[in-house]
């Protein structure tokens, strides 16, 4: 093709357009118009190449807004994509066929019907929504709807298709955040010394300012960039991630990095933040009109995208970057109608004077000590009004009005401080340089380059190396002396704020805040910068104060007669950039545990519920009653009825025949050694020294405050061997406590947490002995293996030679004749299978944990954590019998002694209610409160901890804490149930079932 496509003609010649692949075009739609760009364009650069300078409307006044930073740092560039609101037009690549629209508009960005709000500014003073719309009472409900429509940002697509987001972990010696000249130098220096380096770059191109900016001490930054980049890319010790945002800093250099659809959790031994600096705007009336733009943005536009930024350009500067921009514009053939320096000619450095001379040689005159006082234009800049600066912020009468369509601002820089302040760095303001600098960095974190206040390229590169040397020394990879880096380049103009009586002199573009808004906030008493922010909303918009923090600090300092350092800036909190919830919601790494019989429960259709980290069967519904999804919600009557029926049937089955439950989730701790009994004795409340071998004993554990925190069964298999069970969720705590004390006591005992090494079942019911008889050689008779005995033995596997080693415990558990069998986990499924097979002639049925709770409640057994709370001492839960009064010490003994001597105020009692209350929907539930009496001035004396309908007792039974005066057997106490009605429960003695304990001892 000899004829270039029409779109090419508008663009600047190479080497401008670093991002572009000039042979390929892209087409997308913006606000219904077809926009043609070149491959490599962002939406924004393509729009500007097509003379579309209005991108959005402002938040409050609906003023037209266009490009400002072209770096994705401002809110002007927010546009709506089909499935994504608040996309940054200057960052999103132009893609064929994309349908892009404006946001926050009533109509289109060019013709926004709400633009009329621009003329009602005086009715919307700072904080107006805190002050208006609230009277008369209730009117806010109406106003809120109107304001939400007018002040909203993009629209979320509620029909979006879920996408896959993931997480990954990375570990590096050194992470360098930012790949500008200092970043690349730091990475190379460190990598050369052998450090494993990760280099992060937010943009597509490596090189930071080298890619787009001009430097007074470097003629060919692109060549330098290519050289450094080649070295970085080829270095075996450097990993490079582009389009990767380090979105926060957390303790010890824990860095969340967002790239694509992945959240990287990066841990760095050392970290160098080379985050650069944000260019700052000049505050004057109309400084938001499209065409008023940062110098750096114009450079990006030309160098990266070869877009001609305008026909007649003006430059307003307070540093040498303005001159470099002017020279670049001149080289690209753009007419310079004014170069305005806010400083006096005498303030210029030698370098800057050279640049002025260069401009003179091109026929461009520079105005000194002047500023733009007002910019005018409706949809694009048309004129600037220039005035002389008489004193800081004050100007003379109008000097001249100059027609132009582009105004480049260079008023200085603000270090990209957010991540560093999150790390504990502090900003302090240097009046001489009129700039913030960062101090007080934590260990293992360094800063370099412009974020460190160093702007001259040669010094920036040295500063990168300097930071690398510091990191290398900390890594012990070098012992080089840390060089001093010096840079005298002053980049900030001290007072680039020119208040206009008619306002629209914007401090914060996101929130449409003008000078008077900030000043008025201080006059209303909000002197603290944090309060000014909250009242005026300055810095709360999408650009998070990148450009408003510095002018706000200056204005508040001046208005409150303090220094800028004293005023400071508002706290920068994570995340740095808006973070999609998908990054958080992506694949989680939550651990869960399954017992070795888990799949047998699934085959039987069990309803599974979580218990700690484990999954346990709650009950086993019949075929046709297995509800899933929302139908299984316990809030639904059908689901409740199925549950109740299941646990009734299962409990009756255990009481009359035989049942089997998986209790593998029980904790188990093995104690072996000569001092095993001594350790048991010092930890648990009961005496264990004289526990006979082959016997079990109930074990209660209290904490240092004398509160019951765990219970279990201690089995003594040998003089020097205990096996003690603990609650499912408590075992880790028990193990920790035992090892904690033995670290200090140094007893001769081995403590091992064997919870997951054993699978266990409880075989319970009058027929359980018959089921087990054929499976073991142990004497199972009442005399040979009595209640509370424990044995080690084997289980025969029918039809096979193999025997399973097993521990047999005869414990009460559900109050029937029963055996608890503990076997190595790998035999869990076999154990289940052989017991279910052997039990078939006796109609064995599995039962779940909900049924187990009912059965144990019928026996008056407490469940730690359900029937106890953070205050329950042994007497309150009637476990005084399990506390040895004689032995010198157990964990928490002194506290137990003290609290148990005090007059007791409450007690856990069993209560009973007629089953009729079920029909009336007045069954007490866990957590319902117990009242002192039924009168209107009654007080709360306790609460219900467990309550269930017991088919065996044909009554509602439960346990509740009641006042000590209510705890007498035969008395009654009121419970307030759902709906507010009060039922009277009768105190009964425990257990509810088989008071003589004959069944479990059978």
């Amino acid at each position, binding site marked *: 093709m000899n004829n270039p496509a029409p779109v090419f003609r508008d663009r600047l010649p190479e080497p401008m357009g670093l991002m572009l692949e000039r042979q390929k075009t892209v087409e997308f739609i913006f606000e219904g118009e077809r926009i043609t760009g070149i491959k490599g364009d962002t939406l924004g650069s393509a729009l500007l190449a097509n003379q579309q300078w209005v991108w959005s409307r402002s938040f409050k006044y609906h003023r037209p807004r266009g490009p400002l930073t072209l770096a994705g740092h401002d809110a002007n560039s927010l546009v709506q994509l089909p499935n994504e609101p608040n996309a940054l037009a200057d960052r999103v690549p132009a893609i064929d066929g994309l349908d892009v629209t404006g946001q926050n508009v009533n109509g289109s960005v060019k013709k926004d019907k709400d633009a009329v709000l621009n003329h009602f500014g005086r009715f919307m003073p700072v904080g107006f929504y805190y002050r208006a719309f609230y009277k008369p009472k209730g009117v806010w409900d109406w106003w809120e709807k109107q304001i939400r429509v007018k002040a909203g940002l993009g629209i979320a697509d509620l029909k979006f298709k879920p996408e896959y987001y993931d997480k990954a972990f990375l570990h590096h010696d050194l992470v360098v955040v930012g790949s500008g000249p200092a970043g690349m130098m730091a990475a190379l220096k460190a990598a050369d010394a052998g450090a494993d380096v990760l280099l992060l770059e937010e943009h597509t191109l490596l090189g930071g300012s080298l890619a787009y900016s001009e430097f007074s001490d470097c003629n060919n930054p692109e060549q330098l960039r290519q050289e450094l980049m080649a070295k970085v890319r080829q270095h075996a010790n450097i990993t490079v991630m582009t389009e990767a945002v380090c979105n926060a800093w957390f303790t010890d250099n824990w860095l969340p990095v967002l790239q694509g659809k992945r959240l990287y959790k990066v841990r760095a031994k050392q970290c160098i933040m080379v985050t650069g600096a944000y260019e700052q705007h000049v505050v004057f009336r109309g400084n938001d009109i499209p065409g008023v733009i940062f110098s750096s943005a114009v450079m990006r536009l030309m160098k990266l995208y070869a877009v001609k930024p305008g026909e007649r350009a003006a430059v307003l500067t307070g540093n040498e970057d303005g001159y470099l921009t002017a020279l670049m514009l001149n080289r690209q053939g753009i007419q310079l109608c004014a170069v305005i320096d806010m400083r006096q000619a005498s303030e210029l450095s030698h370098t800057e004077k050279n640049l002025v001379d260069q401009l003179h040689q091109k026929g461009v005159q520079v105005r000194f000590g002047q500023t733009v006082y007002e910019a005018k234009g409706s949809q694009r800049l048309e004129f600037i009004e220039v005035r002389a600066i008489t004193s800081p912020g004050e100007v003379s009468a109008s000097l001249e009005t100059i027609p132009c369509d582009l105004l480049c601002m260079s008023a200085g820089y603000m270090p990209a401080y957010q991540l560093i302040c999150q790390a504990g760095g502090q900003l302090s303001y240097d009046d001489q340089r009129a700039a913030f600098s960062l101090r007080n960095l934590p260990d293992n974190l360094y800063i370099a380059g412009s974020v460190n206040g160093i702007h001259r390229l040669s010094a920036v590169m040295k500063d990168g190396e300097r930071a690398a040397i510091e990191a290398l020394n900390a890594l012990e990879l070098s012992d080089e002396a840390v060089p001093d880096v010096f840079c005298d380049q002053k980049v900030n103009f001290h007072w680039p704020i020119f208040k206009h009586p008619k306002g629209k002199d914007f401090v914060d573009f996101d929130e449409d805040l003008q000078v008077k808004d900030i000043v008025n906030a201080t006059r209303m008493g909000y002197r603290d910068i944090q309060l000014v922010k909250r009242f005026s909303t300055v810095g709360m918009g999408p650009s998070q104060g990148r450009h408003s923090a510095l002018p706000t600090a200056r204005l508040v300092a001046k208005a409150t007669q303090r220094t800028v350092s004293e005023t400071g800036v508002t706290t920068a909190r994570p995340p740095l950039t808006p973070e999609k919830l998908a990054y958080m919601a992506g694949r989680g790494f939550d651990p869960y545990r399954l017992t070795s019989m888990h799949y047998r429960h699934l085959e039987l259709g069990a309803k599974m519920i979580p218990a700690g980290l484990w999954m346990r069967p709650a009950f086993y519904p019949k075929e046709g009653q297995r509800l899933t999804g929302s139908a299984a919600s316990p809030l639904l009557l059908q689901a409740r009825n199925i549950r109740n029926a299941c646990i009734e049937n299962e409990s009756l089955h255990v009481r009359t025949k035989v049942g089997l439950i998986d209790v593998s989730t029980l904790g188990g701790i093995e104690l072996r050694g000569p001092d095993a009994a001594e350790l048991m004795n010092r930890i648990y409340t009961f005496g264990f020294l004289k526990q006979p071998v082959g016997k079990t004993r109930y074990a209660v554990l209290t904490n240092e405050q004398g509160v019951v925190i765990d219970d279990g069964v201690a089995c003594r298999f040998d003089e020097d061997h205990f096996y003690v069970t603990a609650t499912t969720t408590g075992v880790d705590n028990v193990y920790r406590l035992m090892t904690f004390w033995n670290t200090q006591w140094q007893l001769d005992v081995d403590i091992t947490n064997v919870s997951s090494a054993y699978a266990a079942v409880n075989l319970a019911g009058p027929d359980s002995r018959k089921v087990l008889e054929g499976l073991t050689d142990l004497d199972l008779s009442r005399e040979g293996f009595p209640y509370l005995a424990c044995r080690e033995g084997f289980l025969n596997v029918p039809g096979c030679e193999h025997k399973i080693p097993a521990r047999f415990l005869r414990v009460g558990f559900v109050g029937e004749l029963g055996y608890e069998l503990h076997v190595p986990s790998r035999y869990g499924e076999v154990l289940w299978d052989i017991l279910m097979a052997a039990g078939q002639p006796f109609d064995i049925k599995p039962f779940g944990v909900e049924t187990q709770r009912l059965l144990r409640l019928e026996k008056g057994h407490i469940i730690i954590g359900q029937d106890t709370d953070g205050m329950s001492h042994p007497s309150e839960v009637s476990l005084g019998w399990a506390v040895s009064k004689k032995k010198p010490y157990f964990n928490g003994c002194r*506290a137990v002694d003290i609290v148990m001597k*005090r007059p007791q105020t409450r007690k856990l009692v069993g209560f009973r209610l007629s089953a009729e209350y079920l029909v009336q929907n007045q069954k007490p539930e866990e957590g319902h409160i117990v009242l002192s009496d039924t009168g209107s001035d009654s007080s709360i004396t306790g609460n219900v901890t467990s309550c269930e309908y017991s088919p065996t007792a044909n009554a509602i039974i439960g346990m509740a804490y009641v006042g000590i005066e209510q705890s007498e057997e035969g008395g009654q106490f009121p419970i307030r149930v759902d709906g507010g009605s009060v039922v009277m429960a009768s105190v009964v003695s425990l257990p509810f079932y088989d008071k003589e304990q004959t069944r479990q001892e059978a």
Partner: protein
Amino acid sequence: MKVMTCPLNGPRNINEFVFGGEVTPLPDLQAPDQAWAEHTFYSYNGTGVVREWWFHSASGYWFVAERDRTTDQIIKTYDPSELAADIRTAMLDVDRKMFGVERKTEEVAP
């Protein structure tokens, strides 16, 4: 997330560790209730370096860390056998007195 160096396993994320309180010997069993109440409920909350118990969950290992309460900097971590001699003696002292005697408490104040 903070990193702590386990004397047994090296540097690990802090969420692998469980805090075990300040290293303080138990009061004497004969000590008054007040002393036990203070030991149980009051802990010094001033500035300076504190010696603390920490537990590495994954390996079941208790060790000692010295931490600056002002900066939250972990100064060093070590095995309990390397605890300062005075602390170890105090612990053993309580041990010796504690076990093998009957326990007594004071009468409750009215």
